[in-house]
């Protein structure tokens, strides 16, 4: 070998743990986050099991039975029945599917819009950035819930969708996902932009540029992988926020339309009889609360685990 000392003393022979192992370890040390994650996984699993459960117990979430209203818990109806004699547990499970699906799909869409706008603004800078950030400011300045209601009230058939299609459950569901994403993308956009600006000026991007890299290459190869951390955290938190949005919308009468259950509309339906049958309101309210708070704890756990300051 040459006269130059390589200074390799620092390299251990066996590869050290990867960044992901480190993060997992750090996350697992965070007790509240782990508990929250366990709760989330359990809840999701329960909701997913709705269909097998209905087969097992021979129940139908939408079949009404006037002779079975407001029954206390029994062997077939573990949490009793609601005002139309439907099984509460089963409806909670189906409702959870819808609520969680709104949260997750809404977040995906939100993240998609937010990342596109944020990366675009952050990477190009200048006028594009100024324009997009003004746009973001404006959307942020909009009073969220009223705007959601306006968007929720828009008559899709006036946009050319057929009457029947416009009020089919699938479209109603998608519409909620879309309108929430339309107003909620700003958080992720801002975070993405800030992270992109930081990554953009890193020297490895300059090195790539000097070697002939185009914008698209830099964005795909350097920027996106390096901004996953803040986006992951923001997206996690957004799941919780969107579940809350949906429930608020349902409460105001612009959410998921019954008989399709969602935690939000179950809660709303139950509130009329909250005094005589408080359990019907408590269950969905509690599940919303539990899910959202768990999501928040998990998000925080991810943030801490991914914190570059603890990442040597």
């Amino acid at each position: 070998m040459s006269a130059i000392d390589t200074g390799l003393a620092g390299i251990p022979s066996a590869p050290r743990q990867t960044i992901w192992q480190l993060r997992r370890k750090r996350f697992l040390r965070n007790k509240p986050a782990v508990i929250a994650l366990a709760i989330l996984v359990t809840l999701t699993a329960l909701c997913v099991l709705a269909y097998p459960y209905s087969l097992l117990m021979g129940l139908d979430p939408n079949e009404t039975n006037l002779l079975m209203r407001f029954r206390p818990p029994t062997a077939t109806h573990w949490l009793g029945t609601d005002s139309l004699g439907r099984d509460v547990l089963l409806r909670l499970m189906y409702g959870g599917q819808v609520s969680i699906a709104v949260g997750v799909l809404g977040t995906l869409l939100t993240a998609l819009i937010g990342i596109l706008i944020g990366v675009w603004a952050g990477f190009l800078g200048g006028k594009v950035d100024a324009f997009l950030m003004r746009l973001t400011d404006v959307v942020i300045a909009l009073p969220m819930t009223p705007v959601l209601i306006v968007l929720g009230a828009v008559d899709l058939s006036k946009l050319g969708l057929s009457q029947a299609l416009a009020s089919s459950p699938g479209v109603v569901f998608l519409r909620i996902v879309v309108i929430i994403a339309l107003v909620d993308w700003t958080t992720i956009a801002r975070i993405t932009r800030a992270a992109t600006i930081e990554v953009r000026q890193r020297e490895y991007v300059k090195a790539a540029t000097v070697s002939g890299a185009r914008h698209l290459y830099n964005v795909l190869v350097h920027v996106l992988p390096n901004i996953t951390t803040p986006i992951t955290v923001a997206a996690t938190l957004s799941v919780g926020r969107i579940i809350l949005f949906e429930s608020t919308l349902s409460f105001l009468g612009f959410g998921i339309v019954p008989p399709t259950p969602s935690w939000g509309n179950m809660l709303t339906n139950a509130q009329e009889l909250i005094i005589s049958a408080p359990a019907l309101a408590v269950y969905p309210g509690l599940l919303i609360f539990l899910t959202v708070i768990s999501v928040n704890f998990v998000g925080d756990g991810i943030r801490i685990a991914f914190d570059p300051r603890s990442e040597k």
Partner: protein
Amino acid sequence: QADDEQLVLGARQFLTNFHPLVQVNNTKRNLINFSLRPLTAFYLDGNNVCVLCEELPTVENGGAKIVENADGSKGMEVTFKFKEGLSWGDGTPVTSDDVVFTWEMANDPNIGFSNYNPWTRASDVEVIDERTFVIHLPEVMQSYNSWDQVIPAHLERPIYEANKDLESYTRQTLYNREPDNPGLWNGSYVLSDYAVGQRVGFGVNPHWPGKTPDIERIVVSYRDNSSALLQAVLADEIETIVVSPGGISFEQMLELRKQHPDRFQFFVRDGTNLERIAVNLDNPALADLKVRQALMHGIDRQAITDALFEGLQAAAHTFESPVSPYYNPDVRKYEFDPEKAKQLLAEADWTPGPDGICVNDNGDRLSFEFVTTAGNTTREQLALVIQSQLKDICVETQNKFVGLQEYNGEYARKRGFSGMILSSIQFSPSTSPRIALGSDAIPTEENAWVGNNFSGYASEHMDEAVAGFEQSLEETEKAKYSGQVQEIFAEDLPMLPLYFYAAAYVAIPQVGNFNSTPFDVNAIWAEEWTLN
């Protein structure tokens, strides 16, 4: 507990405007009548009585006469006399001139009065003296002695003269600019204060010639949703509340009664407001009478009211409520009988298909869109129950819960529903069944979507019977024609009657003489209420 001098009423929807004769709806009538009284009204027993007048004119007592018009057709003259001492809240007497003014305005097409017993029915108002006037009717009509509020000429005439179109008049009228001006009101109460969207307060009218009210102040307090209303009742903030879509739901009342049987009084009376399913007769399947009959047999109306309303809302067989003086008990009744229903369907060539839903020879499924207002829990439940019940007779309904706006506009009034729509309709003794059964009451583009005949039902037979009713002057004759209308209704089933909303109120025990009438607004007799 309750304040001795003040009674707080709960309600849900605030007024759109305070003008008593423009854009009138039930909400407005319920409120305005505390302070502005109609000439006549239907009392507890369903009888028409004088409110502002001395004596109710009838053909029998000679107050009303049938006269010959100039063109030879028959018309009427109805003479009214205001009560002695009747005054506006500012002390100005209520005079025949006020009637003339009200009638004038009502006949100005640019102003757009739309009260329930319209002044436009009169062809002339003749002043006899300060308190006496004769109303001329161009034709004979059964509602000749039902008349609404008059408005004060001394305050409103100058405004009307200066603003002769709907837009500027509704903006300038004192009813909207200064609703707490006592001169606008002539009831036992005057509207004394208000906060838009939150509350309307009524104080005693010192110039009221009738009984002096026992309760010094009545406040109507608005809460947006029924749970909030109910909580306010439980928190003693609201003392009286109506049970209806405008207040708490019937089910909430039942629950309240279960929880606090002694804390409140519960007034429940049979009502006249009919919950019904309008069926689109343009739909070939529904156009078949057998199918409609099958649907009637397939819906267990009694079970529904038993389960959901503890049997307190009467299952309906016709559009007239059993409390109505014209109720015909002998019409054809459709008892719950799924077997019969299936048989009828089979006769109409609908037989159960592989998935349990009937199909006909063309392979069409017996499946209907079923539209309901979203957010109205009772209706949503109803729709779900009916869905389950009809499934058993191999009829499928696809529930569609739509927002109030869409429901009223696109679906009901523009008849945008292809199958069935759940809606309610009220017949007061002075209204003609024409509004929902007349062939001229089918809402169309030409008539600006006016009319409640959402089914699109047209039958000469029916039209004749309705006209007969409208022209009857005597109660027995009216009952005869109405009975006829009800029979045709039960045979033809232009809509599927479900049940009658009960007229129900919840009030604290201190409230006395709270006479709720299913026929008219009970605020008209508010001075009789007591509080101790």
